[in-house]
């Protein structure tokens, strides 16, 4: 389990995160929603260790992360824009990652099959379409069977078919006990998949809890309406 | 730092006067000898002369005994062995010829031989051990008021002065090896020293580790050719007040300064090599108060300063090579009408330095390796003039420590700017016909 305790991050005098405490549970998908600039990406980067918190803690199974970053061995990350060194081929990217981790990926081939990437793996990354890059990113994120998947707008570049395949993959991971954190603008995706919701507004948590509870407390059957209700309450 | 020539003049003048007193007594004797010799010469001699053998085990066991037994024009052959002589006077025309291994040591605190008769020849001897003195210029061989004396093929080492000729003429000093003690400047004498002489030929000698390798003062019409002067503490060759002389084909290497020519006119300096004179105010060639002389076909390589010219007029410097020197040429503003033409200036840290914006000498047809112009009309000379004095060299002239910035980008940019729009460098110090390729 991964949790944050009182996580606060200032960029200069701007508070990107203020006292954020959330927990990600195995087998559950947590959706982070919030307007642009509400701190979603900063929160994700704090979890990954890309951003150093100004205050507060990130705990992995109750422990502080080590400086060598070995805790990241259990995290699969798909960034918002899948970015790889453009001169490498997909295959080289995968080889690079496995070389850096000096560990053979457990399920690289099955993921390549799943996302139907074989034909594109020998092309340079810079020539790939956004969607194909996103698929490659999914392979990189998933090929070591992570216990936490962090997905930043994962379906944004994917076409409908690929999006469906991807969601299938995520559900399967959830079934196997993986914790999933996902940000998206496509509320319907969350409606479909999310177990828990974290609503961030101006770097603070407006709501954190299960989707069911959210719908119950706001008395709205649709997630989108429930979220709108919370936002309205916050504004009032 | 070397003492200035002027200051030294005073000191050596005192020395010289002491010496003059000392040899005054000798001089009377010399005069008598000369008279006797003249008489002898007038008498038709029956034979060309006998050969006497000086040998440590024979009746003529010392050179002094040998000379005592000899008559004019005899030849004394000095056999192998070590002899001593204490300012031994050679007062009749004689030939002293050493056999290999014949060594003559200074027997006292004075010199070894004093030649007071003409037509003396000293050859193939190894002379050694003349001690330094602060009061007199003791030499291995002193020529005092003589003519037609030949000193050749001797080895002279560890002597205060090597060969000292005073008031003499028509003498030859050739192929001697004169090796000093590499002492301090104050206790070192000159290798070959000529004073008030004329028509002297100093040829093919090798002089090292003395104060001055070859010293000439008040000498006329003399020739210094094909000598090698190395590692001398002051000058390889030192000319003072010695008009109408020439030196050519000499090799000067690692002397504190190669050659100093001062207060002289009509000197021909040709085909010499001036190499590796390194140090503060060290030059291959110093020209000070010189008139109407020619410096032609010489090579100046790896000296701190190739040629330093001050107070000198109407000198022609042509067809010389200046390579790898710190400063190829330092031309002071008090020089007039010198012509510097068709020389090659290659890879010197500075081509020409001067101390003023004034220049009264001309540069023409030289090759400058720093020149970057074009020759569009294909006449072999660059179309734009070359200014050999860089801004930085002026700066170093006024603030020597800034030399550390040599070859820095800043300095290169400043020099380029100055060359493009000259404002501080001497306006007339310019080669309007820079050669596109080496002249030599």
């Amino acid at each position: 389990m991964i949790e944050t305790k009182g996580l606060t991050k200032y960029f200069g005098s701007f508070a990107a995160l203020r006292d954020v405490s959330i927990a990600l549970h195995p087998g559950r998908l947590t959706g982070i929603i919030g307007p642009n600039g509400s701190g979603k990406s900063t929160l994700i980067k704090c979890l990954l260790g890309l951003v150093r918190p100004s205050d507060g803690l990130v705990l992995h199974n109750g422990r502080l992360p080590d400086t060598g970053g070995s805790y990241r061995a259990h995290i699969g990350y798909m960034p918002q824009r899948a970015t790889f060194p453009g001169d490498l081929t997909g295959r080289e990217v995968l080889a690079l990652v496995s070389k850096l981790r000096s560990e053979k990926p457990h399920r690289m081939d099955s993921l390549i099959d799943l996302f139907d990437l074989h034909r594109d793996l020998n092309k340079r990354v810079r020539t790939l379409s956004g969607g194909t890059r996103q698929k490659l990113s999914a392979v990189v994120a998933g090929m070591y069977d992570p216990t936490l998947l962090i997905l930043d707008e994962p379906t944004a570049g994917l076409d409908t078919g690929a999006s469906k395949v991807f969601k299938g993959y995520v559900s399967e991971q959830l079934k196997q006990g993986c914790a999933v954190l996902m940000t998206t603008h496509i509320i319907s995706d969350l409606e479909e998949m999310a177990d828990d919701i974290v609503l961030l507004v101006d770097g603070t948590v407006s709501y954190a809890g299960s989707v069911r509870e959210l719908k119950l407390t706001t008395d709205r059957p649709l997630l989108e309406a429930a979220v709108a209700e919370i936002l309205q309450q916050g504004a009032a | 730092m070397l003492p200035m020539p002027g200051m030294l003049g005073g000191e050596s003048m005192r020395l010289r006067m002491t010496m003059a007193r000392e040899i005054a007594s000798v001089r009377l004797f010399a005069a008598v000898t000369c008279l006797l010799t003249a008489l002898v010469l007038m008498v038709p001699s029956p034979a060309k002369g006998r050969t006497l053998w000086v040998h440590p085990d024979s009746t003529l066991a010392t050179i002094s005994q040998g000379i005592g037994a000899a008559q004019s024009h005899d030849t004394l052959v000095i056999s192998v062995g070590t002899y001593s002589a204490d300012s031994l006077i050679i007062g009749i025309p004689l030939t002293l010829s050493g056999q290999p291994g014949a060594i003559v040591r200074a027997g006292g605190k004075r010199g070894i031989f004093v030649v007071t008769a003409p037509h003396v020849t000293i050859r193939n001897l190894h002379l050694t051990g003349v001690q330094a003195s602060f009061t007199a210029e003791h030499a291995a061989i002193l020529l005092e008021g003589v003519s037609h004396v030949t000193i050749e093929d001797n080895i002279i080492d560890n002597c205060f002065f090597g060969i000292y000729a005073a008031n003499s003429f028509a003498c030859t000093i050739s192929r001697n090896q004169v090796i000093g003690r590499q002492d301090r400047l104050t206790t070192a004498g000159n290798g070959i020293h000529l004073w008030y002489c004329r028509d002297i030929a100093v040829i093919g000698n090798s002089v090292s580790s003395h104060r001055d390798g070859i010293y000439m003062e008040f000498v006329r019409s003399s020739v210094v050719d094909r000598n090698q002067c190395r590692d001398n503490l002051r000058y390889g060759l030192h000319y003072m007040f010695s008009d109408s002389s020439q030196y050519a084909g000499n090799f000067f290497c690692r002397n504190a300064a190669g050659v100093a020519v001062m207060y002289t006119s009509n000197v021909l300096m040709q085909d010499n090599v001036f190499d590796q004179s390194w140090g503060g105010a060290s030059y291959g060639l110093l020209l000070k108060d010189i008139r109407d002389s020619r410096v032609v076909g010489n090579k100046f390589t790896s000296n701190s300063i190739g040629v330093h010219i001050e107070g000198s007029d109407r000198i022609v410097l042509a067809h010389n090579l200046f390579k790898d020197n710190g400063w190829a040429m330092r031309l002071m503003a008090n020089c007039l009408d010198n012509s510097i033409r068709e020389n090659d200036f290659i890879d010197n840290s500075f081509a020409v330095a001067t101390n003023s914006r004034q220049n009264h000498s001309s540069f023409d047809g030289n090759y400058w390796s720093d020149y970057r112009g074009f020759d569009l009309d294909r006449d072999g000379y660059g179309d734009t003039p070359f200014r050999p004095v860089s801004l930085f060299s002026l700066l170093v002239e006024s603030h020597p420590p800034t030399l550390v910035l040599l070859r820095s980008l800043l300095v290169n940019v400043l020099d380029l700017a100055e060359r493009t729009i000259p404002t501080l460098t001497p306006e007339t110090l310019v080669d309007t016909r820079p050669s596109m390729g080496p002249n030599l």
Partner: protein
Amino acid sequence: MTIVRQISGFVIRDILRSRWSIANTMFFAIATAGLFYLQADSARVAVSISSLSLVFIPLISLIYTAMYYYNSRDFIELILTQPIGRRSVFLGLLLGILISLVAGFITGIGIPYVILGSSDWTDISAVIAVIVIAIALSSIFAALALVAATRCDDRGKGLAVILGMWLVAAVLYDGLVLAAATALAEYPMETPLLIASLANPVDLSRVLFLVHSDMAALMGYTGAVFIRFFDQPIGLVVATVSLLAWFAAPVWYGLRRFNLKDF
């Protein structure tokens, strides 16, 4: 350390494939061949190359390193999401950039030298001296550039900072030295100038070349101080320590900043 090696290995392969490395190598190759064309004497070519290196190696190293950093932020972020410590990432990047810089420089100068130069030992030793100094300067300025790029996320600002660094090291510093030496002419300036030249890696490298190439001029004036200093083992030791310090300080500071940096 294996991770550092892997990252640097990747960086090297990445750079070797780019046009940058070809441009870098070609620049020095053409410059060297051009100098051989202009002056036949290969000892003098070494002097010209060293002058050229003093200007261009810092500039190229700075720009190249910063540009590579800015262009590979994707790659850096990718590896930072992997179970790898930031120290290794920083050192791997620096090492990779450095090796490719130096390789480009050595091949650029080396090939014309092998073809056109003499096999005279003094020439070879002059070239070796150029290469050693080039390695030192590349290392120092690559490290400085990496620090600047790490500190400035904005590419334009980062480039402005590194150009400023170059301007100071290659030109302005000498301007200050010149101003000081002329303004304080009545004081003995030799020792302060010696210290001043030890304090700037470009000047130090230049003086190290000077004591060989312009010995005759240096012996002429105050330079005797320099010759005496750099001719002794202590001089070389102090020079080496100064260059190492100029490398170690930015690496140390860069590691600290990189470790605290937000991506």
